[in-house]
């Protein structure tokens, strides 16, 4: 697939989805479908999909402990074990997973190779992906948590705190959340590096662009809703609380832009369990990371271990007995 084909196919699908919701709530006026049925459906697909996928993974056995060791293993008492990069016990594994999940430890190792004159290879630090990855994920998380304010009454205090700190840097009026900007910038970076870096462009699939465009579209529609075509947040909250309490009703007068935003979120939710976005729960299952390097201490059990055909010593000795005796090797059978 041509790179530009991939980009445009993905862009086209996202625009198409936007258009569907625009027409759906505008001319067609199916606000009930877009405000109630689709969100419920999406929520079900999202949660059931994730759970099913996780169960699928969990049901597949882990036949071998293939921990990737990134530091000194536990061995002799005077040799210092690197329990975070090469854990030998559960605490080490927890620490390692913590670093992976919250700080993207492995991505932080990233370097960039350059080949110069005379076949000289040099390595430069390359932490941009790590940096923007971190920014992207944390702003994403913040935004998701902030949305809880629509679904809860009274708001939990941590949600208030997040909004408070976020709005602290009031850049424009009305409050532009700092995270919104970071989020769009970071997602924009992730997109740009995909098209600008030739290797990444070469290996990207339409689905890689699709996820990014969808997320960007959600972010942009969200910002537009706050800044340009403002919607009545109280009514949004009414809708959200109605959905959350299973007494859904469509309040009058929420702008169409809101339904577009909501529909795109629903699309992301439906897409999530079937896509690479499952890396989020997936990383917890990764056997190179979530197992301790204690292979020689504790026997790892393979549930489907089966007997295999081997060449036994008896067969071996039968083949070579005379020769073995001739060179003075002891034999079991004379």
């Amino acid at each position, binding site marked *: 697939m041509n790179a530009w084909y991939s980009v445009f196919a993905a862009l086209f699908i996202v625009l198409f989805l936007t258009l569907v919701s625009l027409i759906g709530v505008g001319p067609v006026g199916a606000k009930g479908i877009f405000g109630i049925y689709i969100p419920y459906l999406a929520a079900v697909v999202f949660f059931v999909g994730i759970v099913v996928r996780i169960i699928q993974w969990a049901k597949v056995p882990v036949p071998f402990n293939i921990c990737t060791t990134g530091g000194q293993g536990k061995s002799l008492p005077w040799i210092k074990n690197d329990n975070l990069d090469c854990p030998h016990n559960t605490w080490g594994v927890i620490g390692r997973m913590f670093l992976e999940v919250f700080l993207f430890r*492995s991505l932080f190792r990233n370097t960039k190779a350059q080949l110069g004159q005379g076949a000289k290879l040099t390595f430069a630090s390359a932490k941009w992906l790590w940096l923007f990855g971190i920014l992207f994920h944390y702003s994403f998380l913040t935004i998701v948590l902030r949305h809880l304010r629509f679904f809860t009454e009274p708001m939990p205090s941590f949600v208030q705190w997040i909004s408070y700190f976020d709005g602290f840097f009031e850049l424009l009026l009305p409050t532009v959340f700092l995270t919104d900007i970071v989020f769009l910038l970071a997602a924009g970076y992730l997109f740009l590096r995909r098209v600008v870096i030739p290797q990444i462009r070469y290996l990207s699939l339409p689905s890689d662009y699709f996820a990014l465009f969808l997320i960007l579209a959600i972010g942009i529609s969200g910002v537009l809703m706050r800044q340009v075509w403002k919607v009545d947040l109280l009514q949004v909250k009414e809708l959200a609380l109605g959905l959350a309490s299973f007494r859904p009703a469509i309040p009058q007068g929420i702008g169409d832009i809101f339904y577009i935003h909501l529909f795109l979120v629903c699309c992301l939710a439906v897409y999530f369990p079937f896509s690479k976005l499952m890396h989020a729960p997936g990383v917890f299952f990764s056997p190179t990371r979530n197992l301790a390097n204690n292979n020689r201490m504790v026997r790892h059990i393979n549930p489907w271990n089966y007997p295999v055909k081997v060449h036994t010593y008896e067969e071996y000795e039968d083949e070579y007995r005379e020769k073995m005796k001739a060179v003075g090797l002891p034999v079991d059978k004379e």
Partner: protein
Amino acid sequence: MELHELPKPEDLVKDVKYRKLPEKPWMQEPVDFKPGTYNYPALAKNLKKVHMPNPREWHVDQQDWHLPDDWQEIILKGFKDRLEKYRSFRLFMDICVRCGACADKCHFFLGGGDPKNMPVLRAELIRSVYRNDFTTVGRLLGNLAGGRKLTLPVLKEWFYYFFQCSECRRCSVFCPYGIDTAEVTMIGRELLNLVGLNINWVMEPVANCFMTGNHLGIPPHGLVENWEFMQDDIEEITGIKVNLPINKKGAEILFVVPSGDYFADPGSYTFMGYLAVLHEIGLDYTWSTYASEGGNFGLFTSHEMIKRLNAKIYAEAKRLKVKWILGGECGHMWRVIHQYMDTMNGPADFLEEPVSPITGTKFENAKGTKMVHIAEFTSDLIRHGKLNLDPSRNDHIRVTYHDSCNPARAVGLFEEPRDIIRTVCKNFYEMPEDSIREKTYCCAGGAGLGNDENMEMRMRGGLPRANAVRYVRDQRGVNRLLCMCAIDRATLSTMMEYWAPDVSVGGIHELVANALIMKGEKKRTVDFRGEPIPGVEPDEEEE
């Protein structure tokens, strides 16, 4: 292909531009079998010896690979089986985000520039089929979802690129989810094996190892001769006839090493090193002709074959009634011993938890498998002052240390070898940070790729390692590349000949033996290579 047929080192990678990629999308680019970059097929006789499917004569560069008619079905069924048996495989198919962090971490990409040697694309070769045949979105959207059908060109591509991965796991260190492309390669090779696509450099050692216990197919009487030969060499160098216990029942310890150590130089110097050290400390141990190979090319074939070839080690330990097992300097052997042996062929409840009879140290880290690495064993001896050493005998050697992939990224064995090296040699210089320890670069000849027909790819893949060696050679005058792996000792030697001709390759126990002052030894005038030690004059009466 011979080394001299390759372009000069400076020119070999002139064409490599990481940022210049083919115009055509990768799914449409058919594989080009360029001589020097692929491996020859397995001979039918070798497949027959180990009862593997579809033994026949075939050639990579011919159109018809003589596959079974239902090859697609066989592979897709094998694919499904493995998705249900290996969480690693299933997960690695599902969660890659194609961030490209692994892209320039593979030595074959760095030295060859072929984008399909970026670990992520290597895995995508198989993942694209996974999406097409095993995922909902893929079944619905096919190509748009990044899926593609398993066609003959795709299969050929698998063959080319899964035998262009040395299963070194460097990529898995950098992947944010720990996706291990070596694991994908291993499963990919298993699938290829189902229809009889394998390479001779893997299958011949496998067949030999199955029948005779070692890769080279040396029968027991041949081993005795070979080993006695080295015993004589040691006597010539040190004046001491060392013990050579073979197949000795009731010995305390069984010692298993890779056959590369007794097959050719410079491995043999390491072998002599073991003999000297174990003799000097008076260890009650034995060699085995049946378990005469620690290496296991099953690792490059299939999980089943790993188990079949590995079984002999515990079986022999049981037969000889030893207490525990010691293992030599080898790379992939230690991946198998550390990560597979106990699970596959254990539990080793007939053995005892290993304790060094010399120092009393308990090897807690090996209390399950009951197998200790010789670097652990020797560094413990040194720590307790049990070896009488004169490092000045190694003064003519300026060393650097290559972490072999498997001890590094599958065992986490970094400090023991360094402790030993620092004690036996005063001139030890590390290569740059990005190329050692868990980030170490492969010798590019592992996983069965260290053959002559694949020479161009090996030398290309060797660039990152050689580049770092050349750096310490130029900055620090290094003239010896140490490693703890039999495949390395063979492949790095060729690599150095090409990329850094004045650097020799050797194992650690060779240097230990050089420095080891043995009780009753004669004046040492030559090292374990038989080369004169500078500054030491032979005594006249010895002439």
